Each structure stands twice: as C-alpha cells, then as structure tokens.
C-alpha cells in the first residue's frame, strides 16, 4: 500500500481562497490554516484530488449565496449580480490556478462502481444512527474556539457532510489497494468520521467499512 491519495474537504478550498485576501484582514487562526494548507499542497504534489461532491458544496456556497450589500430594501438588479459574479469568478480562478500549479486531480462520481451500496441510502443511515455516548463526550471536549460554528449550531454531519462521508467511504472501498486520506478543517467531522470507521458502527446492514481510510485535520 505505497500509493496515497489525499481527498480534500470544502473548507480547504476556502483556505486557498483566503491566501489571496489581504493578510491584514485575516485572524491568526485563519493565517495558520493558510500556512497549513500551503504545506499540505507543497508536500503532496500529484497526490491530492478534489471530489466532485466537494466542488458542488463549494459552488453552492460561493456562487449561489449572494450577500446583499447596502440598503436592505435594495432590489436585486441584473447588473449587481454581474459585478458580484465577476468578482466571485476572479476569486475562483485564483483557486483553479493554485490547484493546477500543484497538480491536483479530480474524482468523478460517475466512475464509481459502488459494490451494491447506495450513496444516499448510506448517508441517510449515517444520519439516522444514534451517536454513541462516548463520541458525544469526545465532541464536547473539543476546544470551543477551534469549532465555534459546530458548538454554536450543534452540528455534526449536517448539510452535505453525510453525503461527503458516504462518498469517501465508497471511494476508499474502490481504491482498497491504496491508502486514502481525507483532509478537513472541521474537527467534528474528523472525530465523528474516524469514530464510525474505528468502531465499525453498524449503520447499514452488510456495510463493510474501508480499512484504508483515515480522516485527518490540516
């Protein structure tokens, strides 16, 4: 198992984006994430891949949620949108350039074989499963500073997370000859996902967890 594939989470794409923001406007925490992201890409040229499901989550956040500037009563005009979208595109192009320079590949869902597993049914089962007390205790001990959003909103695998988790499970099963690492900036996702893998929680009948997958933080 010499080859290693590194898949990245959506928050890593946002870290890349922050590289191009004015450094003075960034907090120390954000700066440290940028440095760690740079290091990840520098040390793993040719190994990193972005899943299409992650691209989708990024697009949904970045191109489809438009902050309304100025007056709250302002109507949305076509011109406002064009200007805003051009700004978003120019920021996105910086990510694309960064990704290409670091020889990052992509993973396509339509190349999956699945072995009879249904991605969405697996995601449904994961989110339906009662979280074990031990995991709840572990999640509660994570520094509130690091995962403020999770603590405040009480989230674990919300939104796309359960789909992303199922996606990387199935991807790892299909690449069982290789070591797969999923890198995320979300400590709750890391802790929760690894707990499911390590304890082989019986979320779905006959589901076999991959043995070659590790979820790690930056």
């Amino acid at each position, binding site marked *: 198992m010499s080859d290693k594939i590194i898949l990245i989470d959506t928050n890593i794409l946002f870290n890349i984006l922050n590289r191009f923001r004015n450094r003075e406007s960034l907090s120390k925490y954000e700066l440290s994430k940028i440095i760690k992201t740079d290091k990840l890409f520098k040390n793993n040229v040719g190994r990193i891949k972005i899943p*299409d499901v992650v*691209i*989708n989550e990024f*697009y949904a956040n970045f191109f*489809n949620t438009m902050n309304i500037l100025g007056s709250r009563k302002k109507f*949305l005009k076509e011109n406002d949108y064009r200007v805003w979208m051009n700004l978003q595109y120019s920021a996105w192009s910086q990510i694309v350039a960064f990704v290409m320079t670091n020889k990052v590949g992509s993973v396509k869902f339509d190349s999956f074989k699945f072995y009879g597993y249904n991605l969405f049914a697996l995601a449904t089962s994961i989110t339906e499963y009662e979280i074990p007390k031990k995991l*709840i205790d572990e999640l509660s001990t994570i520094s509130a500073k690091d995962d403020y959003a999770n603590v405040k909103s*009480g989230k674990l695998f919300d939104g796309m997370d359960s789909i992303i988790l199922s996606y990387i499970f199935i991807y790892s099963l299909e690449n069982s000859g290789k070591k797969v690492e999923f890198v995320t900036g979300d400590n709750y996702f890391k802790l929760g996902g690894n707990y499911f893998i390590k304890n082989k929680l019986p979320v779905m009948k006959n589901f076999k967890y991959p043995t070659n997958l590790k979820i790690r933080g930056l």
Partner: protein
Amino acid sequence: MDMKIIIDSSILGDVFFNKKSKKLDYFFKNNRNNIILPDFILSELHSNIFHKKIDFDNYNQWFKLRWSAYEKLLFFLSINNVEIIYMDLNSEMLKIFNIANAISSMDKKISLFIKENEGKLKYNYFKNASVFKFFNYTSSIMFSYVILYSLSNPDSEVVFLVRHHILKKLENYFIENKIKMVGLDNFIWPDNLKVKLLSDF
C-alpha cells in the same frame, strides 16, 4: 399519464416541526399514491433533523424527542401512502454531480433570469434574510435528482413541489428555456417536469 410528485425536504420539515397547515394535510390526502420521497431528499431531511442544533449536553433526551417526532412524520407519510424510492444506479443517474455542478455554476442564465424578473425580485421574498440564494446548499443536487428521475420516467408527469417562490421560478426558467448545460453536450431536458408550489394545487 400518471403523476408523480416529488416533495422537497423543506415541505417535510414543516410536517416534522409540526408547522403543517390544513392546506398541506389536504394536499397529502388528495394526492395519495402519487407522492414519492427519493432517498436523496430523505438523507437531507435526516441531516436537518438529527445533525443540526444537537444538544450535546443532553443528547440522549434530545435524540429520543427527535426520534419520536420523526416516527410521527413516518406515520404521517405512511398513512398518506408516500413511497420512498432508492436511487437506481444506472449510468444516467451517476451523472448527478456533473449536472448539479453545471447548474450551480451557470452565471449567465441566472443573470438573464434576473434581468427578465427585475422588479419582481423584491427583497420581501426574503424578509428576514441578508442574502439572495439561488442553488445553494443541496438545491442543485436535488434539482438534478428530479431531472434525472423525470428522464428515467418519461411516461409520468413529474411535479417537484418546492416551498420557495424564487426556486420555483428559477427552476421552471431553466426547464422551459432548456438551458444549455456547460460541459454536458448530450444533456436533454425532460418535457414531463414542472416545479410547483403548494398554492398551485
């Protein structure tokens, strides 16, 4: 031509959080045997119910309460003969993220949509929001799922029931104008799909 109605997770959220109106009750009763619940929408609903606003300090009690409300929802769906369907992993269905990515990156078409609807897109559509949302969160995947379902069931009239006026308008705009999908040369829009609101029934 029989009719299949796919309900958005926000509609189910109303049932779960006990916000359902008489109109919604009437809708479910009136459309018995026609309503389907795809696995993707169920998975979105689950993450909203069981993985948001978790009370980590009293998780057991919190989970039991949610679970009992969820069972009520399942009971409501079952007495109204709502069928849960699982994704058929044929080659067409596997394009789901390709289509979703094409939809969520389609700036020129959204721009045209805004141009045609300027003035109608008043801020009061989003009374308490500070953002305009298009295909955010899982909307593009949900829409792709519905498109693919309609293509695989050409003999049925498929209705996607959504909660937000803007989403109905935007999705119908895409369908009616048969918007060209960037990067998907062979993509064909279904002729049997309509997006509706509860008030349209």
